[in-house]
């Protein structure tokens, strides 16, 4: 397990390096010069930047400088915002995105497991039919539609009760977080529900559940120890990719709900061609996702002894 962890971490570092390299060359392929913005730049500023990033040097030298900075954890200075280091932007706004993401994935995971188990239990009966219809909606409708509909619903709800039940946008308190994280987690929850349902159906009719019943165990014990634990395994394997989906979904949800998260800054940076912020956030998000996938894999090992002991 320790050896496996080390192996996975090394793989992760290589993956992040790939991401960094690809980002670098992609950014250099983009037409337009980040330094040629409307604001005229003094000769002095230009010199300083050249000294720092080596813009007057050949590409491969620039690449070396860029990787060198990155290894030291320095993502540079924003081109569009005065006096802001990319590191500060990450430090300030990433926790907001992470918190939103964690809430969304928790909601998606718990909801998926609960509804999946429920639909399997009531297979082809009313709860199953209703939930599976909603699941198809949840999978096929994109999150920005949910975001808009969610906001509209909140407006109506608040108007109906005459007070603010839940805030329509913004960030800061728990009540601000509920609506956006539900909206953000919805698609993933639908997907996980469907996965959990089929997994559960397969396991309910498995040989070892029959064995458990032949042992005369109570139904709750069979459900918790024999069915649920095994049925969750496939859900845990897709948790990594699900985190990626929720992260990218977060860009949109943060914009719509006016949440000061990193996603919003990323979108803004792309619009303004804020070179260092784009590269910094891309590499940071990449590294974060790679790390999360590793964490999920290790978590899977904890649940499944066949993985843990090999």
């Amino acid at each position: 397990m320790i050896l496996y962890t080390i192996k996975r971490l090394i793989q992760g570092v290589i993956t992040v390096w790939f991401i960094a390299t690809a980002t670098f060359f992609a950014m250099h392929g983009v037409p337009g010069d980040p330094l040629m913005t409307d604001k005229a730049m003094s000769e002095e500023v230009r010199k300083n930047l050249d000294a720092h990033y080596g813009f007057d040097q050949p590409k491969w030298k620039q690449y070396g400088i860029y990787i060198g900075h990155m290894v030291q954890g320095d993502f540079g200075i924003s081109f569009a915002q005065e006096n802001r280091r990319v590191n500060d932007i990450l430090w300030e706004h990433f926790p907001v995105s992470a918190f939103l993401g964690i809430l969304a994935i928790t909601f998606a995971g718990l909801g998926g497991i609960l509804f999946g188990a429920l639909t399997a239990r009531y297979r082809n009966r009313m709860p199953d039919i209703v939930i599976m219809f909603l699941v198809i909606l949840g999978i096929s409708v994109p999150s920005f539609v949910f975001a808009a509909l969610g906001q509209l619903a909140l407006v109506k709800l608040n108007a109906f009760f005459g007070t603010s039940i839940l805030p329509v946008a913004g960030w800061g308190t728990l009540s601000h977080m509920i609506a956006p994280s539900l909206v953000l987690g919805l698609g993933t929850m639908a997907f996980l529900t469907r996965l959990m349902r089929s997994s559960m159906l397969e396991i309910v009719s498995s040989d070892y559940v029959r064995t458990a019943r032949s042992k005369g165990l109570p139904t709750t014990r069979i459900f918790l120890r024999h069915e649920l634990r095994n049925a969750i395994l496939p859900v845990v394997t897709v948790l990594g990719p699900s985190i990626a989906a929720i992260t990218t979904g977060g860009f949109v949800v943060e914009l719509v709900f006016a949440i000061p998260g990193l996603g919003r800054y990323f979108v803004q940076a792309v619009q303004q061609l804020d070179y260092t912020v784009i590269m910094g956030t891309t590499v940071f998000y990449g590294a974060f996702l790679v790390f999360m996938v590793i964490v999920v894999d290790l978590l899977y090992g904890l649940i499944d002894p066949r993985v843990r002991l090999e």
Partner: protein
Amino acid sequence: MTAVIDQVTSALLEVRDLEVEFDTYGGTVRAVRGVSFEVHAGKTLAIVGESGCGKSVTVQSIMGLIPSPPGRIVGGTAKLRGKEIVDGVTADGEIVRGSRIGMIFQDPMTSLNPTMTIGDQIAETLQVHRGFSHSQALRLAVELLEMTRINEPSRRARQYPFEFSGGMLQRSMIAMAIACRPSILIADEPTTALDVTIQSQILDLLRDLQQENNMAIVLITHDLGVVARMADEVAVMYAGEFLETGTADDIFYNSAHPYTVGLRAAMPTNRDESEQDLMPIDGSPPDLFAPPPGCAYFARCPHAMEACRNDPPPGFAVGSGHMTRCWLHHADCSRRIEDLHYAAAAPLEGRDA
């Protein structure tokens, strides 16, 4: 029909007129159609028949393991020491499933929970039925593994199913099934998925455990060789019915049903000369969506008569405790029963004549 079956009152388990159906998209499958038998302490009853004839469904309905829907027990009773069993519990609340009756299955590779240690899976039964603490139950689980001849039982108890071989998994299943000292062990094709040498070891183990604990065994198999080696009593099952029941000697040396005779002729033995005489039975079992109105074996029977087509044969007593469901045994039938024994009655391996 039951009138002709000997009423033995000392039976441990008594099943009468069991009928089980399954609702499927294709219609209703009549999987078990009026089966009666008894199980006696310390004895082995073998239920033998081709795949799909209803052996598993028969024993699973006694254990209350029939998935419902689609399954349905339409009729019949099962009594343990005279007390009726419903849903794995006797009339006075005694838990039968896992406690009085243990069960093992065909494929040990898939019959154990992959994410739970072997020891925990055995201990679980003791915790539930005996109220043992986890550590107490675990200690006993190690003893049970030792009883089923697993080396290093305390280390093995901490391992997971994927770390075991098929034979060891079946031993663990046995340890689990006998944990509460059941009076009956139901073994549904316990060696079918195993290598021949492992098969033999498992059968030996079952036999020894039976003798040590005076345990009754209901052994399901499609292999007459296994029957010959293990059974005291035999029920020959076909298309949801018992066509012949009797002692192992009755079945092997005094077969009274054309199907039993056919099965024996199709049975390989270790003798060279008999291998050439292997005669598989032509045709296939009837459709259980619409079972034939008369004798179930009619379509394949070399002795079939016109009467067999539409009149189901009742059980005929052909000896003490020996029953067969075939018109040839009717008093008015001109055919001689001896005609049946056209197949060479070669002495069987594992049985003394």
